[in-house]
């Protein structure tokens, strides 16, 4: 029963998002608007895998996005071909995610600030003049030679569907069940023979790789970016708001949250970015105080009450 339900929801959401992605540009000409939306949905799903299923919220999650974008550039800079550059990119993200694995032995708020430290460290490392031989530092990175927007657009769509089903699969599998057990009670999950660090570590690596692929697609699509464009902490916080607002841990929540808040984001980000930041700041406070389970949590409680 549960098995079918998760896949059905993913199928429905994918169909809806694909329709939006390929029919939307006929109504609203700005294709980048839809591309960014898809990238944000992918990031929200990636964050949902680690936060929604383990309860660990990495505030510096966007570091993998930045890594994903810069890895390709660094790969090409050291003389790799385009395909190898992408492989190199995913390999170094994988290594970074593995290096950060010990963070899961920490309590959740130490984990949060540690990922923030990882983010800040990487941001300053990539932007540093010492590394400009590989990253071009503050001058920005250019992927113009391999620029191919229509291919990137299709790849983003494919990857979106992939992550959608990946989350559904995790939620339906015994592995997802063990993650839920850990979230409920670490001690009883351990007593049931679940290897807690491994289970969390797998979720962490999966969500890191998702952000990295999203970053590489984003970098490829925009073809020119600065360290602060992709290592953008504020953007990372917005993604957290998308997930929390929609409802962490559910399939629909992060997508709904992203769709609603992305519209507000686009509307204000052009000329009123300070007001946007104010809005998201207050929103985060209100979510914690009044709607910790997000929109989906509120809706499902209403639904249960009325039944």
């Amino acid at each position, binding site marked *: 029963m549960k098995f079918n339900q998760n896949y059905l929801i993913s199928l429905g959401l994918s169909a809806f998002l694909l329709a939006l992605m390929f029919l939307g540009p006929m109504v609203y000409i700005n294709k980048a608007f839809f591309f960014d939306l898809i990238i944000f949905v992918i990031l929200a799903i990636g964050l949902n895998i680690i936060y929604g299923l383990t*309860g660990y*919220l990495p*505030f510096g999650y966007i570091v993998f996005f930045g890594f994903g974008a810069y890895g390709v550039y660094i790969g090409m800079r050291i003389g790799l071909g385009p395909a190898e550059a992408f492989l190199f990119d995913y390999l170094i993200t994988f290594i970074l995610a593995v290096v950060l694995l*010990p*963070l*899961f*032995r*920490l*309590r*959740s*708020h*130490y984990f*949060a*600030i*540690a990922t*923030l*430290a*990882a983010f*800040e*460290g*990487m941001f*300053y*490392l990539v932007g*540093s*003049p*010492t590394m400009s031989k590989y990253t071009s530092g503050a001058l920005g990175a250019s992927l113009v030679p391999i620029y191919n927007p229509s291919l990137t657009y299709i790849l983003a769509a494919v990857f979106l569907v992939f992550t959608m089903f990946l989350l559904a699969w995790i939620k339906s599998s015994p592995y997802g069940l063990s993650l839920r057990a850990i979230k409920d009670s*670490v001690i009883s999950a*351990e007593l049931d023979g679940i290897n*807690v*660090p491994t289970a969390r570590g797998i979720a962490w690596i999966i969500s890191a790789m998702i952000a990295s692929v999203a970053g590489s697609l984003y970098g490829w699509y925009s073809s020119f970016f600065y360290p602060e464009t992709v290592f953008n*902490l*504020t953007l990372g*916080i917005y993604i*957290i708001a998308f997930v*929390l607002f929609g409802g962490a841990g559910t399939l629909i929540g992060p997508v709904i949250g992203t769709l609603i808040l992305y519209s507000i984001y686009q509307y204000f980000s052009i000329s009123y970015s*300070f*007001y*946007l*930041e*104010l809005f*998201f*700041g*207050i*929103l*985060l*406070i209100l*979510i*914690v*105080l009044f709607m*910790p389970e997000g929109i989906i949590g509120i809706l499902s409680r209403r639904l249960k009450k009325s039944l």
Partner: protein
Amino acid sequence: MSSISLFSYAIIVGIMLGLYYALMGLGLNIVFGVVRMINVAHGDLIMLGSYLAYYLLVYFGVKDEISLIISFPMFFLLGIAIYFAFVPKLQSSNDPEMNSFVLFFGLSLAIEAISFIIFGSFYHALPSSALWGGSFSLFGFGTPHTYIALAIISSIVLFITYIYLNKTRLGKSVRALIQNRDQAVSFGINPTLTALIAFAFGFGVAGMAGTIGPYVFGSVYPSMGDFITVIAFTIVVIGALGNPLSTIIGGLVFGVFYQFLEVYLPGLSLAITFFILLAIIVVRPGGILGGAQREV
């Protein structure tokens, strides 16, 4: 300019600024100690304190030492307001640690945005004449008198904090509460009042650190908060989390260490600082001088 004099210069300046860094981390650690929450908006309080000093100087010609004294009661009251608005509700939630982190991050974003809207995105520097002015030669390197002022002011505030926590009844209750909450309560300590005053004191100290901050960071601008919070947290974990006075050691170690990075590896000093923070959190989450704080 021999290498020995450069070395000595880095140590002396590191110690002077280190005393300031201790002051910068102090408020964060006091707040963490009493409510077990990481105040992510700590850096934004420092930013607001800097703006207070800047505007008092520009519009009223108030010297920095006076702004320092004005800032404490203002931030103390702000602390009381924030405490009542959020802390009781957070403490009764299902995951106070993570929820408080998210909430204070939201607060940090909101403060930063309001500062952008009110103050604009320009970088403002405080003239050194507002805090002692002039400079002297230290091992052949020109050093502003302001650094001496920073060291003296920070030492005074740290000393007052020491008196508060170790010599007064109220402060002793704070330490009892940090060490063992249940036992402290059973001995008749009012946990809410004690925590409230210490929380507000932490805010007050953060505001004071803010008023003299521009002399260390070079200028004041709305988005400086995030970065200062993470640096302040680095200083706190070099000492011990939840032990306010260990922050003095944290500040001094960080000050000297950072000064060396600035002198010998200027391009990578910030990146290395953050990676070291990461390493400390992983190896000793309670801080280098603190106990283990692990789960699982």
